[in-house]
């Protein structure tokens, strides 16, 4: 049911963890829907120099989290804000239909982390 790319990111997820003293942190989802994604960012100038994720969720949730960290790394904040959940799913060669709405939140978590950073900047 999952593409090879999803299974690759699921079994060897990239950038797992939490950045200490992160510049921005974003968390989306909740326990009742079964998916929680947390993204932390290290930002230098206007560029994402490091990004890590922690996810409670199904195969799709973990794979999209991993994929979004790869896609956002070394991007400017404005570039990262252009990333959409749909683009993340496309980069994984698609997700099963029933996963598109529930477990495809990784770009939202990234955007939340950027928002958190910008709020802290004031």
């Amino acid at each position: 049911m999952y593409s090879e790319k999803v299974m690759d990111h699921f079994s060897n997820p990239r950038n797992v963890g939490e950045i200490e003293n992160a510049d921005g942190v974003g968390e989306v989802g909740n326990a009742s829907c079964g998916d929680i994604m947390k993204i932390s960012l290290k930002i230098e100038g206007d560029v994402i120099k490091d990004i890590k994720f922690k996810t409670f969720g199904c195969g799709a949730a973990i794979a999209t989290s991993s994929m979004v960290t790869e896609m956002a790394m070394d991007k400017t904040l404005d570039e990262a804000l252009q990333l959409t959940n749909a683009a993340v799913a496309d980069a994984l060669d698609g997700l099963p239909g029933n996963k598109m709405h529930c477990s495809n939140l990784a770009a939202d978590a990234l955007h939340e982390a950027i928002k958190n950073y910008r709020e802290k900047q004031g």
Partner: protein
Amino acid sequence: MKQVYMDYNATTPVRPEVLEEMLPFFREHFGNPSSVHWAGRQVSGAVENAREQVARLINCSPAEIVFTSCGSEGDNMSLKGTVDALRDKGNHIVTTTVEHPAVLSTCQYLEKNGCEVTYLPVDEHGMIDSAQLEKAITEKTILISIMWGNNETGTLFPVEEIGAIAQKYKVRFHTDAVQAIGKIPVDVQKANVDLLVLSGHKVGGPKGVGAVYVRRGTRMTPLIHGGHQERNRRAGTHNVAAIAGLGKACELAGERIEGDYQRVRDLRDRLERGIMERIPEVKLNGHPEKRLPNTLNVSFAYIEGESLLLNFDMKGIAASSGSACTSGSLEPSHVMGAMGVEIALAHSSTRFSLGPDNTEEDVDYVLEVLPPIVERLREMSPLYKKKA
């Protein structure tokens, strides 16, 4: 890669003796048992033989067995057929919140069509309170539908008490015994059951066949109208090969129930103990003692069931989960919800259901593979704070 199947509550492999029993009915003995000629006569005996084999397993008379296509059909037939036939007596059904969807969805359908349904709650072990059942019965109650053993947790309901209550209030008692059959002794007389549903593929028989025990004298409208098969209780040409297979599977189950399931219980207990010893923060879902001997349902805190199953699958282990992702809806298992399991733990619930083909080696393999998988997924989880 080693493959370990621990999903026997989902389905079981057809036993070799069962397959042998079935094969002649595809080519050599292909007749329709309703025909009068030689080809029909060749097979009608096989259907009646199977009826006896099924009847013996649950202690009823062969004439009280009706063959069906599956467990869901049996539940639909029992509920809809009772409601239709007893329209003049009442419209109230008492069931539980943890029934199989074949019963729950049918009840919801019947509610839309004028029935009233009481769904009895369960406690943290998934157990009902018989006193609540008794209180729920009204003068309009026509049916109690309570499963023998729960498919997700294995919790065994007090069927003999339920049967006694049904008798006291003269209410019909239907039980979905799909998971209990072949795993524990099932006796329709002792439990005073009026309608009992079983399925072939859960007991080493083929898919596509089941049976309903219908106590003699039980008025019921058929679900499938048509020819005169099954004493007018269920129309449709007999699936002879599958029926013969079901019969053989029931015969074997009866002979082996004690030996097989003592062994399976030991394996299940070894798995349970091993998991609890090796992995912290694991919660048992289901009754600690009153439980099917093969079923172990546990929640591994902080990780989601589907990601766990995918990791198991990569190691050749087949199990199942009550997480939303595997239930095909956005909600986790209704059984976990009814037991009051915290929602994140409900998404974590994982069912191992063992069978007679499992070995000690299988259990030890799972116990070896499991801890690092759980540890790795927990490291990934934002809910997990490692204990110092």
